[in-house]
């Protein structure tokens, strides 16, 4: 059972970051009546998947991914989607204080009891790590008694060696259609992966079913 939250704030840098490992959690909170805000920092402008023959170019990709992001939000039932206007692959080069303020302003406005983001240093993409760093720093600066919980995603190859296994496990088996809806909404990024995934799900592959029905997080410790 997932705990009821006052408000959940999800912060990721790319459209589709929410889909793979968090969309079930988002959809479940929304079904529980918990307000969820998703702040997506960029539109994945520098995505490499353009197809061959191409379905998009460098300049048309952002509008496509913006539509996909909105469709993913719709699939999850999410109504408070914020697009923060940064550019893909530049997040780590923004002023650090500006990034902390961006997160702090969202927390001030929404007063979330739970924030979900990436684990800094173990999230592979520089934008992921930079986002996680800003989130951690914004929350660290709060009085301990005021801090929301922070659940993080980590998937660097060194993750288990460095921080072990996730401690939070969400059963999202009630929203599998919505999760698949979010995944499929990001077609420009996921269509190849989902072809394979659908085959594995149809064959009742245990790992694929586990992916579909459970989501895992590391509680970030500020100690």
């Amino acid at each position, binding site marked *: 059972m997932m705990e009821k939250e006052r408000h959940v704030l999800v912060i990721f840098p790319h459209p589709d970051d929410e889909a793979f490992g968090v969309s079930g959690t988002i959809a479940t909170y929304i079904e529980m009546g918990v307000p969820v805000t998703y702040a997506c920092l960029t539109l994945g402008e520098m995505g490499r998947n353009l*197809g061959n023959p*191409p379905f998009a170019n460098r300049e048309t990709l952002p509008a496509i991914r913006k539509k996909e992001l909105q469709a993913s939000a719709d699939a999850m039932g999410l109504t408070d989607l914020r697009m923060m206007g940064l550019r893909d692959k530049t997040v780590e080069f923004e002023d650090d204080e500006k990034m902390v303020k961006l997160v702090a302003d969202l927390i001030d406005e929404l007063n979330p009891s739970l924030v979900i983001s990436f684990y800094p240093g173990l999230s592979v993409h520089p934008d992921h790590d930079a986002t996680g760093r800003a989130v951690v720093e914004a929350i660290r600066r709060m009085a301990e008694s005021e801090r929301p919980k922070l659940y993080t995603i980590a998937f660097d190859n060194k993750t288990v060696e460095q921080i072990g296994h996730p401690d939070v496990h969400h059963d999202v088996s009630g929203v599998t259609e919505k999760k698949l809806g979010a995944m499929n909404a990001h077609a420009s990024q996921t269509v190849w992966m989902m072809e394979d995934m659908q085959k594995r799900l149809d064959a009742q592959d245990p790992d694929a079913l586990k992916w579909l029905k459970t989501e895992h997080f590391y509680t970030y410790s500020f100690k």
Partner: protein
Amino acid sequence: MELVQRDQLQSLIDSFAGKDVYIHLETTNGSYAAHFQEGFFNAGAFIRNIVVNYELGKVAGDSPHRIGLKLPSGWIYAQGITHYELDEHGRLLMAGLGPDGKLAVSLEISETPFTY
């Protein structure tokens, strides 16, 4: 974008010569390259909305092509260009797409600034 037709691309590149133009140039292996292949040396570069005025531009080689722009005191080139289009804003967009459909290089030329 279409596969490069060398003569057509050459005449499009000629049409921007001698004008102040905005450049987007990018090379990339993707941010996940070293994640999927341990030890991969990941390198790339990106500039956007830099204004130049080139005196000569050339399409060289067979596909994937090389594109070189000679500046009054410098150079720009891109290697691996496979696709191009003149978009509805009159911008010349060129890209090198691998067989997997992933962009590896992109060179774009426009008389108006690209978005952010």
